[in-house]
C-alpha cells in the first residue's frame, strides 16, 4: 500500500520525519518496504506566465520562453513545445532539489541562459505524463508558490501490508492505525453530495450467486458532463498512490478505493440492458476484457452481467462493452463485497491480478460499502454536472454485526511476558475502533467489522502488545526441563560429514530435482517422483540417487577449469511408493486432513524418502607435490572412503548400469546392502560431460554407515611381534579379498595382522596367474621362536593352498 504523506496529513496531525515514521510504523504495525520521493523535494516552485515563446536559435528541438514570475521576467530554455504566450506554468527555481536527488542549477543551453525549468506533470509528481509542460488555469495567481494550490513534492511510504490486515489497504485505515500508535485523533471526510439524479430503480438488481457475493450496492449518478478530467489534486493522489489517472469517473472510483480500501466499479448506464445480474459464469462463456484479452469462464467464476451478457469478471476486470468512457453521462456505480477465496481462485486460474482483486481476495468488510458509495457519490457530484440518484439498490441479506471478544489481563501478561495495565489495554483497543467493557477484571471488546482478524483473545493480546511496544518485553530464558542432544542417527550424519570434510572432500548441497535425462543417462528404470509444476523441464523429477546432481556439479567444475575434485553430499532421495488402489481414498484423506484411520502413515504418503551419502571423485583429486605423486579418481580411492565410512564392509562384484562393469562393487554392511562403489561407466561419463576424465563414486545409506564405531578394549602383551612376508602365485581370477578373509578366519592362531603389499601379473609370473605378496605380523603370550613362527606361516600357507590353490613364489 502506497501512502502519500501529504494525504495522510489530511487525516491526522503528526510531526515526524519520514525516517521516524518508518521506524515507528515498523516497530508497532507493519513493515515499510520503501520510501519514494516524487516531484520537488526541496526548493521553490512558483507560478509563471509565459510572455514569449519561440524556437531556440541554435537548436532544432529546443524552445526559449520569457516567463513572468510576478514582477520579474526570466528566460527559460525548454524541450516541450506546448506553452504559448499567456499560459500559466509551474516554474521550479534554481537551487531546488528534484526527486532523483539532483539540484537544479542555472544553466546555459546551446548558448542561452536558462533560469529554472518549466515543469511537466511527471516532474511535479502529478502523473506519468511527460508530454508537455503542465498548463495551469487562471485561478493560479502569477508569482505565488504552487504549493499554495497543491503539493509540489511528495514522500510516499510503501507499506508491506500483511494478509490479515485488509483494512490497511486504504488511507483511512492507515490513518486510524497511525492514530492508535500515536494516541491521537484522526478525522475522515464527511461525504455530502447533490441528489435528484435519475433513479437507480430504472434498472434491476438480481444477485443469483449469494454465496459468492455477501453484499452488492448499486447507485446511479446521472447528468455528468462528458469527457471530464479529474481535478489535479485527485489525479496527483492517484498517481502517488501507484495508479494511473484515466478519466473523471474511473479516477473517482480509484480514488475512493485508495481512500477506503473498497474497490468500486462504474458502468455506463446507457449500455446496461435492463439491470445488473450477479451470477456464476456459464460453461464456455467468453468475455473480452479491457486489456483486450478474451477469457473463457466456468461456473466457479463470478460474473457481473446484465440480462444479456457478462460485463465484468467480478472483482477483477470489466469488459470493454459497458465501461465508462469519454462520452459517459450516466453511470451505475457498483460497490460490493465478494467472497475472497473465490476471487483469489479466479485470479489464479486466469493469471490476472489487479489492484481490486488484491483487496477483494483478503476478504473485505461489507459494512464499508455504504461509506465508499457515499464518498464516490460525493466526488462524482463535485464534477461538473453529476447528480446522485435518491435511491440505492442494495443486496445485503445477512448484515455483519460487530462481535465480542474477551481479554483477560493475566492472559495478556502471560503471553507477552510483561505487565499490562488495564487502562492501557482499554485505551489501545478503543483507539483501534473497539468498544470496551469491563466485567470482573476481564475486558470485553466489541470489535468493529473492518477488523475481521480480531476474533480471539490472542488476537487482542497481539494488538495491545504491539501498540504498547514489543521492545518493552524483557529478554528472559525459560528453564528447560530436559536434556538436549542429538539422536544417534543425527550424530552419525554429522560425523559422516565431518569425516569426509577432514579427509579433504568438499560438501555440496544440490537441488534434489532434475531433468528426466538424469534417469535415462544413468540407465535407470523410471521410478521417479515427478513435480506437477516444475520451474522448468530441467527440474521436474525428484532424484533417486545423489549421483546425478554431483556429476553435473563435477562437470561444471571441469568446465570452469578445475583439474579435478572430490564432492560429497548428504541428502534425501525419493521413490514413488504409490498406495494400492484400495488405499487411494484413505491416502488422499490422510494427506488433506491428517486422518489416517488404522493405516500406517508410511503407506499413505506415496513417496518413500531415504537419506543417502554420495561421493564423486573426478579427475586429479589431489595434484602431485614435489615429494608425493598425484591422486587420481579411481575405484580404490573411492573404496578407501567406503572402508572408513562402513568399517568391516564387504565388497561384492556387482554392477549397475552406470558403473564400470569390472570396477564396481556392492557394499555390504553385515547382511544388508549399504550401497555401491565404483568407477563411472565411460559412456555415462560422456553423457554428463565428463569424457576422458576418471570418475569414481559411491553412494551409501546414511543409516548403515558407521563412521565412529564404538571402541572395545582388547588386551595386549608386551612381547616383541615378529614380521614375515610371503609371496604366492595364484590364478588371476581369485579375489584377494577372499584370501585375506580366509587367512583372518583361521582359528586359534598367533597372526595379529595381515596386509597385502604387492599384487603383480606379467612376466615372469606365468600367464593367467598373479603374484600376491602378504605381510604378516605374529605375536604370542611370550616371545615366539623361529620354529613357532615358521609353523604359523605354514598353517596359513596350507589354508591358502587348500582353498585357492596357491603356490609359494620362489
Amino acid at each position, binding site marked *: 500500500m502506497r501512502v502519500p504523506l501529504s494525504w495522510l496529513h489530511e487525516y491526522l496531525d503528526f510531526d515526524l520525519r519520514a525516517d521516524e515514521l518508518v521506524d515507528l510504523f515498523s516497530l508497532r504495525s507493519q513493515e515499510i518496504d520503501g520510501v519514494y520521493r516524487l516531484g520537488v523535494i526541496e526548493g521553490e516552485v512558483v507560478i509563471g506566465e509565459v510572455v514569449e515563446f519561440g524556437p531556440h536559435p541554435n537548436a532544432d528541438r529546443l524552445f526559449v520562453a520569457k516567463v513572468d514570475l510576478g514582477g520579474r521576467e526570466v528566460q527559460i530554455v525548454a524541450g516541450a513545445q506546448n506553452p504559448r504566450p499567456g499560459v500559466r506554468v509551474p516554474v521550479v527555481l534554481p537551487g531546488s532539489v528534484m526527486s532523483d536527488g539532483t539540484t537544479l542549477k542555472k544553466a546555459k543551453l546551446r548558448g542561452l541562459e536558462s533560469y529554472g525549468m518549466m515543469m511537466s506533470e511527471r516532474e511535479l509528481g502529478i502523473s506519468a505524463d511527460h508530454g508537455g509542460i503542465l498548463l495551469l488555469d487562471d485561478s493560479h495567481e502569477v508569482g505565488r508558490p504552487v504549493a499554495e494550490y497543491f503539493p509540489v513534492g511528495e514522500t510516499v511510504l510503501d507499506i508491506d501490508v500483511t494478509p490479515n490486515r485488509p483494512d490497511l489497504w486504504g488511507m483511512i485505515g492507515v490513518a486510524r492505525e497511525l492514530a492508535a500508535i500515536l494516541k491521537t485523533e484522526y478525522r475522515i471526510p464527511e461525504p455530502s453530495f447533490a441528489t435528484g439524479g435519475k433513479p437507480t430503480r430504472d434498472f434491476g438488481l438480481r444477485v443469483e450467486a449469494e454465496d459468492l457475493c455477501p453484499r452488492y450496492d448499486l447507485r446511479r449518478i446521472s447528468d455528468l458532463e462528458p469527457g471530464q478530467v479529474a481535478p489535479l489534486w485527485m489525479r496527483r493522489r492517484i498517481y502517488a498512490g501507484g495508479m494511473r489517472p484515466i478519466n473523471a469517473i474511473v479516477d473517482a472510483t480509484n480514488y475512493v478505493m485508495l481512500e477506503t480500501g473498497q474497490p468500486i466499479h462504474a458502468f455506463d448506464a446507457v449500455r446496461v440492458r435492463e439491470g445488473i445480474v450477479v451470477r456464476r459464469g456459464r460453461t464456455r462463456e467468453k468475455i473480452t476484457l479491457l486489456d483486450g484479452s478474451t477469457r473463457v469462464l466456468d461456473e466457479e467464476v463470478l460474473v457481473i452481467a446484465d440480462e444479456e451478457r457478462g460485463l465484468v469478471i467480478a472483482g477483477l476486470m470489466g469488459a470493454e462493452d459497458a465501461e465508462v468512457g469519454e462520452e459517459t453521462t450516466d453511470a451505475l456505480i457498483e460497490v460490493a463485497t465478494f467472497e475472497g477465496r473465490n476471487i483469489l481462485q479466479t485470479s489464479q486460474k486466469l493469471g490476472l491480478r489487479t489492484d481490486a482483486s488484491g483487496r477483494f481476495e483478503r476478504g473485505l468488510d461489507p459494512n464499508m460499502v455504504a461509506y465508499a458509495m457515499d464518498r464516490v457519490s460525493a466526488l462524482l457530484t463535485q464534477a461538473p454536472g453529476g447528480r446522485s440518484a435518491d435511491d440505492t439498490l442494495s443486496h445485503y441479506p445477512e448484515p455483519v454485526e460487530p462481535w465480542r471478544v474477551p481479554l483477560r489481563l493475566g492472559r495478556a501478561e502471560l503471553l507477552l*511476558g510483561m505487565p499490562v495495565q488495564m487502562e492501557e489495554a482499554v485505551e489501545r483497543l478503543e483507539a483501534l475502533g473497539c468498544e470496551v467493557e469491563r466485567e470482573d477484571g476481564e475486558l470485553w471488546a466489541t470489535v468493529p467489522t473492518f477488523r475481521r482478524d480480531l476474533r480471539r483473545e490472542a488476537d487482542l493480546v497481539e494488538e495491545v502488545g*504491539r501498540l504498547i511496544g514489543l521492545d518493552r518485553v524483557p*529478554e528472559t530464558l525459560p528453564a528447560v526441563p530436559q*536434556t538436549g542432544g542429538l539422536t544417534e542417527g543425527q550424530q552419525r550424519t554429522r560425523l559422516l560429514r565431518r569425516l569426509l570434510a577432514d579427509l579433504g572432500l568438499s560438501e*555440496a548441497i544440490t537441488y534434489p530435482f532434475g531433468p528426466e535425462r538424469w534417469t535415462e543417462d544413468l540407465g535407470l528404470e523410471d521410478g521417479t517422483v515427478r513435480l506437477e509444476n516444475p520451474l522448468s523441464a530441467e527440474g521436474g523429477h525428484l532424484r533417486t540417487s545423489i549421483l546425478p546432481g554431483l556429476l553435473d556439479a563435477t562437470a561444471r567444475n571441469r568446465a570452469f577449469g*578445475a583439474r579435478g575434485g572430490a564432492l560429497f553430499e548428504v541428502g534425501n532421495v525419493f521413490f514413488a511408493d504409490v498406495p494400492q488402489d484400495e488405499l487411494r481414498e484413505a491416502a488422499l484423506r490422510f494427506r488433506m486432513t491428517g486422518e489416517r484411520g488404522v493405516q500406517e502413515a508410511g503407506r499413505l504418503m506415496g513417496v518413500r524418502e531415504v537419506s543417502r551419502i554420495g561421493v564423486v571423485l573426478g579427475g586429479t583429486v589431489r595434484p602431485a607435490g614435489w615429494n608425493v605423486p598425484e591422486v587420481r579418481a579411481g575405484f580404490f580411492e573411492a573404496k578407501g572412503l567406503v572402508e572408513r565410512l562402513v568399517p568391516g564392509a564387504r565388497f561384492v562384484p556387482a554392477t549397475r548400469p552406470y558403473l564400470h562393469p569390472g570396477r564396481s562393487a556392492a557394499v555390504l554392511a553385515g547382511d544388508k546392502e549399504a550401497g555401491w562403489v565404483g568407477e563411472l561407466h565411460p559412456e555415462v561419463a560422456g553423457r554428463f560431460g565428463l569424457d576422458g576424465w576418471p570418475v569414481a563414486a559411491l553412494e551409501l545409506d546414511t543409516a548403515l554407515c558407521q563412521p565412529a564405531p564404538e571402541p572395545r578394549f582388547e588386551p595386549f602383551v608386551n612381547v616383541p611381534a615378529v614380521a614375515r612376508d610371503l609371496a604366492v602365485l595364484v590364478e588371476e581370477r581369485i579375489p584377494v579379498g577372499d584370501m585375506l578373509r580366509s587367512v583372518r578366519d583361521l582359528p586359534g592362531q598367533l597372526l595379529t595382522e595381515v596386509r597385502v603389499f604387492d599384487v603383480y601379473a606379467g612376466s615372469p609370473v606365468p600367464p593367467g596367474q598373479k603374484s600376491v605378496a602378504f605381510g604378516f605380523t605374529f605375536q604370542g603370550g611370550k616371545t615366539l621362536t623361529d620354529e613357532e613362527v615358521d609353523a604359523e606361516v605354514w598353517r596359513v600357507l596350507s589354508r591358502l593352498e587348500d582353498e585357492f590353490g596357491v603356490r609359494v613364489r620362489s
Partner: protein
Amino acid sequence: MTVSERIEQLKSEALSAVASGASTADLEDIRVRFLGRSAELTEIKKSIGTLSPDERKEIGRSSNLASREIEAALGSRAEEVAAREQEERLQAEAADVTLPGVPFPRGHLHPSQIVIDDVIDFFVGLGYRVAEGPEVETDYYNFTALGIPPGHPARTMQDTFFVDDGLVLRTQTSPMQIRTMLAQEPPVYVVCPGRTYRRDSDPTHTPMFHQIEGLAVDRGLTLGHLKGTLGAMARHVFGEGVEIRVRPSYFQFTEPSVEMDVSCFVCGGRDPHCKVCKGAGWLEMLGAGMVDPGVLEEVGYDPEEYTGYAFGMGPDRMAMVKYGVPDLRLFFEGDLRFLRQF
C-alpha cells in the same frame, strides 16, 4: 734405547696421532696401530714375562699407564670427533624448509551446514532436541494444520511445488511442529533443520533453501522467553555485542507474531554506507511468535494450560550475511571455487 724409553716414545707418538685423528675411522686405525693385537706396546706387554722381576714391575706399570693414557685420549678424542661428525652430517641433511610439506588437505563443510550445526549446537546446549521430517509433505501438515486451509490467501504467498494429490514439497519446516506435537506430550523443546522448497528463482531466492524451525511448548512460556532465547542465539551466532529487536508481523500459526532483526554485527548501525546492513543498522533475521491457540488445539494440547513459542530462520541467508556472499544461487551449484572458501 731402553724399553721404558721406547714406551714413552710410543705413548707420545700415539697421543700425537690421536690428537690429529680427524674421523672416527682414523681413530679406529690409531687404536689398532697402538693398542691392537700386534701393536708394539701390546708386544711389549706380552714379553713382560721374560723380564727380570724388577724390570717386570717397572715395564708392566709403565706400559699399562701408557695404554690407559692412550685409551683415555682416544676416548675423549672420539667423542669430539663424533660430535663434529654428527654436526657435519646434520648440516648435510639440511632441507629447504620453505618447500611445502606433505599434503594432508582439508576439505570443506557447506556454509549453510556450518550455520545449521552452529545453531543446533546452541539449542542443544539449552536443552532442545532435534527433529527432522520428510521433504515431500502432506497438504495437511504443510498448510491446514498450521492454520492455512485450502483456499486461504496465505497459500499464494508460498509458491508451492506440487507432487501429487495432497502432496507438496514442503514450503517450510513448520510441519515438523505438528509432527512433533502429535508424537509427544508437552514439554516440547525442539529445533527442526531441513531443506524447504518454493517455486521461485532469482539472486535472492532459489527453489530450494534451508530453514531451521524451533518450537517450545510448556507451562508459562512467554514472548519474553522467545526474545531471550533468540537474543542469546543471535549473540552465539553473530558475536557477543549484537542486539535484537522484534517487530509485529503475521504468520498463520503464531499469535502474536513477530519478526526479529539483529543489530548489524559489522558496523553496529554506525556506518551509513555499511555493505552488510546497507546503513539500516538492522538485519532482518527470522519470523517467530507465540504458538497460535488453534494450532495447540489441533494437536490436542490445552491452550489454557500450555503456551509456546515458535520461530523459523533461514540459515542460508544467515550464512550470506555472516560470510558476505552476495548471491544465494552460489550455495547450490557445487562449485568448488565457492565451497573451498568455507
